[in-house]
């Protein structure tokens, strides 16, 4: 005892505690557990490691990963992380805090969530946002469930086949077990216009999985006419320049906050966001922070509208979500504060210029054709390779680049963010040009 850093107990402490409890040993505290269930012998785990040994263990593993220049997107984007963010989010008052149920000692958490909600509303143009979801795909799944909840007995949700594969896969999973009829289609307008569905909602990507900025003119009117809700799946970084869900007439906006400066980190932790029009406020899943005042009139923030949530409503709650991704919402909130409107405009401008440069240079190699010629894109685009995709991917990997993500149609997608330079793009293009593909 007293020999392990995280356990403060001396032998004397343990003796005092056992005496107060009136037992002779800690094992006696488990006397009500059938003896056959007490684990005997050693656990098959490594022996305790010192801090330096832990460090070395991870260093040896991380050295087995290959660091690549990222020219891929597919739902995770290599944007720069301002140095301020990890500095702020690693403050232990934020990092080691519990969910802000005790509002009097959680005003820091509650205030940044309120700021996050405001920023998500401003990005999407919608009225109300929640405190966060796990990630973009699960936020989309919650939006699908919300469409059903808002339209009562309607059970059909139409999803565009141009949504990201991981969004579609997550929608399929949630639909499968909750009795939702998920219809995937390339032509959302046609599917809805037929008018034969008991339509609860429609989910479309603001920017689709080929990087194309979609035009949803007239869609919201049609969906509403058929009695459903329109959900836009968005890249929040791109919302600084592309038409907002509110401008398209959508009821709900969801997406992944990763593009707001969150490191790639092999897919997580990221953060989902969700916003909606006022009329659907009480159907939103998850936590919501609201402004009020204390008895002395000081502005105060609290978790509010909790009658929607699992700890109050149990099986009648709007969702089962409890812990979400609060610290990552702080990450994005600090990011958007750092970037401001001008930074977001400039960043998107860089993405636009660099990705179009990459696009044009790749086409000029003669090794690709453009299946979506003339369609607008911002940072990610799809090409049809005139060679073996696997060979192309390997050639890029060998040169230290990660790009040319394959799609099920046989296209490859590339992405260039503000972190890529023209020199890096030239180097990638040179590799493609010179390789025997």
């Amino acid at each position, binding site marked *: 005892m007293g020999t392990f850093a995280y*356990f403060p107990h001396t032998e004397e402490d343990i003796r005092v505690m056992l005496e107060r409890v009136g*037992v002779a040993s800690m094992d006696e505290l488990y006397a009500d557990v059938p003896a056959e269930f007490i684990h005997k012998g050693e656990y098959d785990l490594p022996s305790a490691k010192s801090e330096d040994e832990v460090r070395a263990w991870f260093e040896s593993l991380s050295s087995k990963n290959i660091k690549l220049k990222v020219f891929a997107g597919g739902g995770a984007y290599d944007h720069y992380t301002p140095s301020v963010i990890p500095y702020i989010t690693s403050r232990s008052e934020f990092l080691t805090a519990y969910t802000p149920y005790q509002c009097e000692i959680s005003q820091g958490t509650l205030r940044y969530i309120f700021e996050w909600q405001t920023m998500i509303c401003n990005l999407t143009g919608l009225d109300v946002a929640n405190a966060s979801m796990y990630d973009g795909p699960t936020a989309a799944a919650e939006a699908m469930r919300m469409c059903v909840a808002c339209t009562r007995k309607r059970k059909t949700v139409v999803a565009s086949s141009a949504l990201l594969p991981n969004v579609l896969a997550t929608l399929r999973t949630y639909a499968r077990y909750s009795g939702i009829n998920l219809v995937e289609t390339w032509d959302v307008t046609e599917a809805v216009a037929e008018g034969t569905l008991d339509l609860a909602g429609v989910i479309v990507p603001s920017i689709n999985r080929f990087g194309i900025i979609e035009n949803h003119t007239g869609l919201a009117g049609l969906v509403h006419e058929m009695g459903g809700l329109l959900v836009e799946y968005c890249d929040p970084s791109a919302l600084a320049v592309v038409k907002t869900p509110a401008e398209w007439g959508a009821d709900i906006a969801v997406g992944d906050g990763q593009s707001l400066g969150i490191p790639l980190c092999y897919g*997580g932790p990221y953060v989902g966001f969700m916003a909606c029009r006022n009329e659907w406020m009480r159907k939103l899943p998850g936590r919501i922070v*609201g402004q009020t005042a204390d008895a002395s009139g000081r502005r105060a923030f609290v978790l509010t509208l909790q009658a929607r949530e699992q700890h109050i409503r*149990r099986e009648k709650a709007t969702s089962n979500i409890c812990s979400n991704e609060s610290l990552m919402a702080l990450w994005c909130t600090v990011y958007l504060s750092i970037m401001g409107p001008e930074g977001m405009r400039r960043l998107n401008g860089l993405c636009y210029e660099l990705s179009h440069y990459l696009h044009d240079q790749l086409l000029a190699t003669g090794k690709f054709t453009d299946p979506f010629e003339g369609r607008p894109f911002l940072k990610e685009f799809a090409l049809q390779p005139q060679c073996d995709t696997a060979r192309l991917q390997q050639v890029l990997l060998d040169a230290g680049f990660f790009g040319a993500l394959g799609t099920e149609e046989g296209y490859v997608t590339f992405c260039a963010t503000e972190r890529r330079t023209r020199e890096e793009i030239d180097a990638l293009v040179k590799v493609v040009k010179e390789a025997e593909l």
Partner: protein
Amino acid sequence: MRYYDKLIFELSRPGRSAFSLPSEAGSFKPTSGSIWRETPLDLPEVSEPDVVRHYTNLSQMNFGVDTGFYPLGSCTMKYNPKINEEIVSQFNGIHPLQPASTTEGVKAVYDFMDKALAEITGMKHFTFLPCAGAHGELTGLMLIREYHMSRGDSARTKIIVPDSAHGTNPASAAVCGLDVVVVKSRPDGLVDVEDLKPLLGPDIAGIMMTNPNTLGLFERDIKEIAELVHGCGGLLYYDGANMNPLLGVVRPGDMGFDVMHLNLHKTFSTPHGGGGPGSGPVGVSERLVHLLDKPRVSGFHGNFGVILRACAYILSLGRENIKLAGRLSTLAANYIKESLKDSFKLPIESVCKHEFVFDGLREAGEVTTLDVAKRLLDYGFHAPTIYFPLLFHQALMIEPTETESLQTLDEFIDVMHTIAKEASATPDLLKTAPHNTPIGRPDETTAARQPVLKYSRQ
């Protein structure tokens, strides 16, 4: 803690900025109006020092594990080791879709964690896709449904949940399309096996249990319950929120559970982050392994950054110390219970595990559990979980962990006794508490009736 009343938007001045981008940027002009944003983007315009000072000031209105003790039932707020934070940045630059040949180190972390968690819990394999505990519950229930469906057993649409269960249990069941059937607790706080028996039948998908339960009591009839549920063709789900007292002592797999989740942000020391990110890996027994990858419940590979931290924790503890974690947490809980039961009502007299529940003060008068909780804040402690479980009107649910010293526990006990005395002597002091925090009790009714959910410029 000091009150600070600004929002980042209120620091904004047109033309200020804090971003840092290559100077080449900026000539991009949208080509046509139809697909581009028309509404001006309202974000703060602030400098870098503004941002740092603002969020530092916000942080100073927050309480965390590094600030003080959280006696928070069912939440397992243990110390978050700092080495766990340090190692994460080594893995930041890896794209989730990178091919396996470039991510061997990542795979080794997942493999290690799969093996370690299987060893610790007695399950066969884990999926790491779920991002939190409730997400794990949902995934586990999907696996249970998938198991029955894969056998053509489609009538199993009901799930049994004890009345003392965490709120997420019935909520997860509902999201998974299952109807909840409640099984009652006996006066001794354990699942009533006689009440359970008539519920079992060909429509039962399974039972969700946490063991120890939310009263901190070990469900000692678990063997009989497992036999009964398995006997009717159902499966047993283990809610890992209360795994801490069993860490290094008892394995859910050995008790007959088929599916379970762990909260890495509870039992495995990763920081709670003010409400996430968490991680809720789901483990299954042999007969469900082939279904493990079927529910695609999140975008990529789960919260890898959280999994890394939990991995560092297991390596630091090692097989020697893991055996102590659960035992020490149980000892701490019993120590507090025995030290406070003179002042607080203990509805069930029994050895507890990691947590226990008081039903308010013995001499309460006008003073409620909420008042006690708020007064604790004045003394520099977080409040316990209150008004849960629902079995008792004035529930006050206390869970210390193995990382709290005897001095801290004694300070907490002293303060709780002081509050009990104050309740009789100066009840108004409690009814108006807290007094030493950045804000006093807020008006929650107005917050819900006239919701103000975002900042609007004056």
